[in-house]
């Protein structure tokens, strides 16, 4: 998984978020536009691009985009 590509794809799930403002340290749940619907779109994106499953626990326990990336990247 390419980290920059992941960041960009993550940012694309939002309507009003400037992709350049997103870093691995961004606390995604604090973004104003973050909602359960955006979460579903992120899950779909990861399934499509990486063929990996994001669970409810991943979203609850990861705080930053980097943490979410690390959890996914460690999975086969």
């Amino acid at each position, binding site marked *: 998984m390419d980290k920059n590509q992941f960041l960009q794809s993550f940012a694309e799930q939002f309507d009003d978020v400037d992709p350049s403002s997103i870093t691995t340290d961004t606390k995604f749940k604090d973004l104003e536009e973050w*909602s*359960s*619907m955006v*979460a*579903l*779109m992120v*899950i*779909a994106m990861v*399934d499509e691009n990486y063929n990996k*499953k*994001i*669970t*409810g626990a*991943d*979203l*609850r326990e990861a705080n930053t985009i980097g943490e979410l990336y690390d959890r996914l990247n460690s999975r086969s």
Partner: protein
Amino acid sequence: MALLHNKNVVIKGISACVPKRVVKNMDNSYFSPNDIKSFVQNVGVEELRTSGEDICSSDLCVAAAERLLKESGIDRDDIGILVFVSQSPDYYFLPNTACIIQDRLQLSKEILAFDVPLGCSGYIYGLNLVASYLSSGQIRKGLLLVGDTASKIPYPRDKSSGMLFGDAGAATLLEYDEGAGGGNFHLATDGAGYKAIIVPEGGFRNRFSTQSLAEYTSAEGLIRTPNSLHLDGFDVFSFGITEAPKTCKKLMEHLGISNDDIDFAVFHQANKMMNEKIRKKLNLPENKVPYSLKHFGNTSSASIPLTMVKQIRTELQTKQNKLLLCGFGVGLSWGTAYVVCDPLIVPELIEI
């Protein structure tokens, strides 16, 4: 690998019934207009049919069955098996609702009648179960009833499920028919995901207590009671978009069929985003994938037959159809059926 073939069986007819009462999600006073708008847009549910205090799943199923039996003109005494698939039975586990329905429908006492408490996958499991009994010809006709009053299970203030579930019941008549191709199935289970859709208290693992109805707020800010539905929407979404396409592909590969061999693919009506994702992963064109979600919501075990009756009734009545049917959800449990149906008896959607 649970790939199964039940020969010598045909589906003769399908009917469905919903409560008359319409609840529009935009009128829901528990949630903000913005939240509702986003829900309607993404999940695709504008309104629901809800049964209120007086109507049970069994009532919806009995109404559907009465009409189907009448229009098919068969002798009730010929029905040798009755299966009631539901997670909202009349009574708390005893007696089985199927027994009560045997009497209400005035079916023969020489009948096997029992409940199968499955949800979203229940129609597929039910078809396979009844077809299995009929396949040998020892029982000639079977009635599969699937239905839920799923609107009663979530806590009304729970944003994850309070606007999602509607009520419906359906009846399917199956018959022994020597030489008929029957139905092909793929059935699967993954209990590791049992917490993704669960009512935590009120069963025998966690008994109903004075605390079971106490409102609390979850870590995600969802308002629930321990005796209400706990839906982990993210886990369910992940599960659905992965396993539903997989089970369809597995059965299709096993049978050596392609999308050209499917007239309609009818999926459990879970959530528009999820279902569209599944449809796209399977490269199925929109005109082959009917939806009832917008006006009826997620109707649990009844969602597949309800969608068939509501959306493709004329086609089912007038021509042969090759159908791929796929249910997935609570358990976690999922399955796919491939059936070729000659013109069916399909009464108009019933409202009570």
